[in-house]
């Protein structure tokens, strides 16, 4: 098992938190505390009141969990919800049909398997997003999970930062390829080495989606790794003191950085950091080593690069071959692969998994995957350590449970928030739009021929679907009570980060999938060669040909 092993102290934290919340719920039910006083407390335990019921957002810390935990989530979905869960763009899992009176029992059940819903909502530091390929990818400078766990502990119940101006999201990436959208976070941390080979972080501050998207500027090129927590303290303190509190739409740190200016903001942070007594805040080497060790060591076998079993199977089974082409990523160890499990079967709700599917993934992970499962910000799952020899049987098992859709990063691998079907904040539905588009491109040959195309859909300006970072971004808006959708093009949440630009006037719901088809057709006709991605063709040619394709009558306007 290569999950951070909770020790007695970690477990007592979860137990004490669950007990505290039980008391707070009782006081709310008896009228001892008002809804206004209770709301931040329940939000800080991940409990929202949504359109149909309460929604519970369970933390999957930096997207990592094991089979036991996934089974527990499946059981919770059965015992307290309606038999399914939704994986989110911040690598958490949501249950949509929760009752307040059950929440304390659910937290106890979670705590029993080292899970919780701590700080998954509220104006506090949220779950850290880390590279889902951590510990498996060859191009990693250091394991981001170690640092994510350090941040998790430092930020959990941090007394000074529990009532921030607004929510706060941190991402840690350790590879050249950014699978976390780090620059679109409040703080993005990129592991790096300086010329002397010292380990540290490039620190980016002030990114964010939402009403006004920003890419965070780098405020420090190199921060020695051991100073991470004190530096974060400095950033958070500056934000806590200076972030706006008069207008919730202007309260994120991205607004503060933009209005102060990156240079001046960096100066404020450096000044605070210099004045801080850093030593008591930063983790001693011993503790960092303890955390690293607590992740365990994966007992990799020494295997040849080529697996005869796998080669024979994929030669015989075109479906396996297609799955391997699209959903596998190279592993740092010879004879292993990283397996991506798509939760985007065309026609299904993106990111949803049934209890049976969760249990199937748990079983496969336990038997063939070193009991290691990750969640990605694209609402998919990953088995980071699978032997090539085992791929045929893993694929067969995934297929049995509808978990073998071979569409990673393709047009049908759509990110969509729950939208107006579930969320009290939404203006429009996102799920049916995703389903429409996915059904249109469901033919696997077609999707593969199109190549990498990231479609991201949000049901409101809060942008939980990350539409600003979509190659095709779609934003649901409310136009005189009807659902309309604004298309934007050219966004990216990867290391080539960019914000999507609005293409033209919003379209009614039934015209969205045809518009996407028109965009795809335009791209196929314009690309310089099949290797040129949609995003690259757009960047090369600009919006004009795409606008023309969608708004064919535009010249008449």
């Amino acid at each position, binding site marked *: 098992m290569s999950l951070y092993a909770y020790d007695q102290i970690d477990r007592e934290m979860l137990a004490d938190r669950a007990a505290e919340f039980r008391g707070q719920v009782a006081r709310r039910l008896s009228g001892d505390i008002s809804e206004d006083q209770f709301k931040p407390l329940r939000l800080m335990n991940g409990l929202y009141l949504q359109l149909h*019921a309460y929604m519970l957002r369970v933390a999957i810390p930096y997207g990592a969990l094991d089979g036991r935990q996934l089974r527990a989530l499946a059981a919770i979905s059965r015992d307290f919800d309606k038999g399914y869960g939704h994986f989110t763009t911040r690598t958490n899992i949501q249950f949509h049909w929760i009752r307040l009176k059950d929440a304390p029992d659910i937290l106890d059940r979670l705590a029993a398997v080292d899970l919780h819903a701590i700080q998954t909502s509220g104006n506090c530091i949220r779950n850290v997003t880390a590279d889902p390929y951590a510990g498996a990818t060859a191009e990693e400078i250091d394991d981001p999970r170690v640092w994510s766990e350090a941040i998790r502990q430092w930020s959990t119940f941090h007394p000074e930062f529990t009532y921030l101006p607004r929510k706060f999201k941190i991402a840690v990436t350790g590879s050249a390829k950014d699978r976390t959208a780090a620059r679109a976070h409040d703080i993005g941390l990129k592991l790096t080495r300086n010329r002397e080979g010292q380990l540290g972080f490039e620190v980016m501050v002030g990114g964010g989606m939402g009403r006004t998207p920003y890419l965070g500027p780098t405020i420090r090129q190199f921060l020695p790794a051991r100073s991470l927590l004190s530096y974060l303290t400095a950033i958070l303190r500056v934000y806590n003191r200076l972030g706006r509190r008069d207008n919730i739409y202007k309260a994120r740190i991205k607004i503060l950085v933009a209005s102060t200016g990156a240079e001046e903001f960096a100066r404020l942070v450096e000044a605070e950091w210099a004045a801080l007594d850093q030593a008591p805040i930063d983790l001693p080497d011993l503790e960092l080593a303890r955390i690293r060790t607590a992740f365990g060591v994966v007992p990799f076998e020494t295997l040849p690069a080529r697996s005869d079993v796998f080669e024979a199977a994929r030669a015989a089974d075109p479906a396996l071959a297609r799955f391997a082409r699209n959903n596998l990523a190279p592993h740092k160890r010879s004879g292993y692969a990283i397996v991506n499990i798509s939760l985007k079967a065309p026609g299904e709700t993106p990111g949803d998994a049934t209890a049976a599917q969760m249990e199937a993934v748990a079983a496969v992970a336990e038997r063939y995957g070193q009991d290691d499962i990750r969640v990605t910000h694209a609402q998919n799952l990953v088995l980071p350590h699978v032997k090539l020899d085992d791929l045929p049987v893993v694929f067969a098992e995934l297929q049995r449970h509808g978990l073998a859709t071979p569409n990673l990063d393709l047009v049908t691998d759509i990110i969509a928030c729950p939208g107006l079907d579930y969320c009290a904040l939404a203006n429009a539905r996102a799920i049916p739009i995703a389903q429409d588009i996915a059904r249109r491109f469901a033919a696997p040959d077609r999707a593969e021929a199109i190549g990498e195309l990231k479609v991201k859909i949000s049901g409101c300006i809060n942008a939980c679907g990350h539409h600003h970072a979509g190659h095709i971004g779609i934003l649901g808006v409310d136009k005189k009570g009807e659902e309309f959708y604004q298309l934007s093009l050219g966004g990216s949440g990867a290391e080539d980060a960019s914000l999507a630009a609005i293409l033209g006037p919003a379209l009614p719901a039934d015209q969205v999938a045809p518009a996407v088809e028109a965009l795809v057709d335009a791209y196929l006709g314009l690309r310089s060669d099949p290797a040129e991605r949609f995003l690259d063709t757009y960047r090369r040619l600009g919006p004009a040909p795409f606008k023309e394709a969608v708004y064919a009558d535009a010249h008449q306007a």
Partner: protein
Amino acid sequence: MTLQALTANRLLDGDVVFWSGERWVEQFSDAHLYDDPEPAEAALATAKGLPTVLVDPYLIAVTDDGAAPVSFRERIRALGPSDHLELGKQAEGGAAIAAIQHAHGSALSTGRLSLIRRKP
């Protein structure tokens, strides 16, 4: 004047409920429809005095034939999610549910009569 209904979420389980005139019910078709703002406001005031029963009661606009809430959002609250037609209130089926599902037109996006600030 527009017909109105009074709705809220139940504190204990978060379920969407409507005031029937006598008790809090789960189906929109059992909701009392007000055609006069005074009793509607009075019922709302009473509901706001029940913080251990309800969260955030408010009035919603209803179509002239009384079949459905005006706003799309309120229709979804009265039905359930469109990606799982077997879940939520819509699972009960029947004519009243069908009437909400097939209701046409909507003007007020949130359905709340006391509109919170909305950018034009």
